[in-house]
């Protein structure tokens, strides 16, 4: 598993402190991050693949600094957003997955082959030529995940990937995420998705307030809500 390290990480938006000194080393296969709205979860998640740089401290993935080595980090870390419509850039399903491989050095037949295999893995093979805007919410999220996984990242960071989905689609996506061999960092409000996770980190107002197994950390989180 990759080692994701936060050392003295702080982040501000103007005068607002979003993260106020986070020190974490994540090496487990399944890590959950929970916290109330505004606790800094998404900011923390976006630092893992260099989308956001800390205003102080450093974030590294296997020793690669996410600010100075962003390109190398993003080759290893795939990011799944809450709203898949933000992530899907091409008009059809197959084209969007193929877009992820445009700089892979693979030939067109190899790309087509990899796209077909990936779509089959996610149950989207029958939708290869369908317009992306006509997919259901769950299908769009599966497509977003497929487009990330086709590049073979070591780590998947998923920022509330089931928030916009109905129960059926949320279960489908969460089951799929749970079955992935890649290292997964899942930011979620749906606590039941963290069953079986190796570690859960609870953020509150930019600070880590609990860090342990789900059984240890989640009661701290639910206690904060009361």
């Amino acid at each position, binding site marked *: 598993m990759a080692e994701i390290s936060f050392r003295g990480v702080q982040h501000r938006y103007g005068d607002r402190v979003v993260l106020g000194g986070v020190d974490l080393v994540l090496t487990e296969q399944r890590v959950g991050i929970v916290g109330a709205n505004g606790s800094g979860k998404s900011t923390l998640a*976006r630092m893992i*693949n260099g*989308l956001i740089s800390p205003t102080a401290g450093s974030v590294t993935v296997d020793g690669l600094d996410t600010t100075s080595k*962003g*390109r190398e980090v*993003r*080759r290893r870390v*795939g*990011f799944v*957003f809450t*709203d898949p*419509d*933000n*992530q*899907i*850039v*091409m*008009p*059809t399903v197959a*084209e969007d997955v*193929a*877009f*992820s491989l*445009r*700089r892979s050095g693979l030939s067109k037949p190899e790309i087509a082959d990899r796209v077909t295999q990936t779509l089959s893995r996610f149950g989207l093979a029958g939708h290869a*030529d369908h*317009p*992306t*805007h*006509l997919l259901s919410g769950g299908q769009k999220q599966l497509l977003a995940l497929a*487009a*990330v996984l086709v590049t073979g990242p070591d780590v998947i960071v998923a920022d509330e990937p089931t928030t916009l989905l109905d129960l059926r689609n949320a279960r489908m996506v969460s089951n799929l995420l749970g079955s992935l061999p890649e290292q997964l960092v899942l930011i979620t409000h749906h606590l039941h998705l963290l069953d079986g996770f190796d570690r859960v980190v609870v953020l509150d107002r930019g600070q880590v307030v609990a860090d342990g197994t789900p059984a240890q950390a989640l009661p701290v989180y639910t206690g904060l809500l009361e």
Partner: protein
Amino acid sequence: MSMIGLYQPGSSVLHRLPAGVKLLGLLLAVVGIVLLTAPWQLGVAALALAAGFALARIPARVIGRQLWPMRWFVLAIGIFQVIFAGPERAVMVCGTLLLTVAVAALVTLTTRVTAMLDVCQRLLGPLRRVGVDPDRAGLVLALTIRCVPLMAEIIGAVSQARKARGASFSMRALVVPAVVRALRRADAIGDALTARGVDD
């Protein structure tokens, strides 16, 4: 919803033609249609186009969906032309409009967007010398196509919200939130593109 990018999978002769050939054919067809001078010539062009759709095995309802959004526009143009230029001129103008859209739809329905973008990128290749990035230009075109249905959704959602709040006739209640949402969407898409290594 967007007409653009609604590729209809198939294996007809038209589907298998290279995108560059089809785009060149589109250009020539549009020029030819615009140069027509009599209604009977429009009729011949329409028959040729119908044969093209039949060859591509595009169902009539799909063709209809491409042209249906233009009905009010064509009607307005037609009425204007009848009043100020006469019925024959109205037929020529409306017929030309419909045929050019239909021939563009035939190309769109039988050509993958990525194939069309590849052609655009190849055509822009010589402009690398003056600082144009064909890959980036191709991405811009793809995003433009992708964003048409997204904008339609935003405007639809804002319209419904406006109606629910009893402000159905307020342009400000439509334009301001639609622009704000569009900008937020653009920001989010930018983040996603960065995450997908577009700038790497």
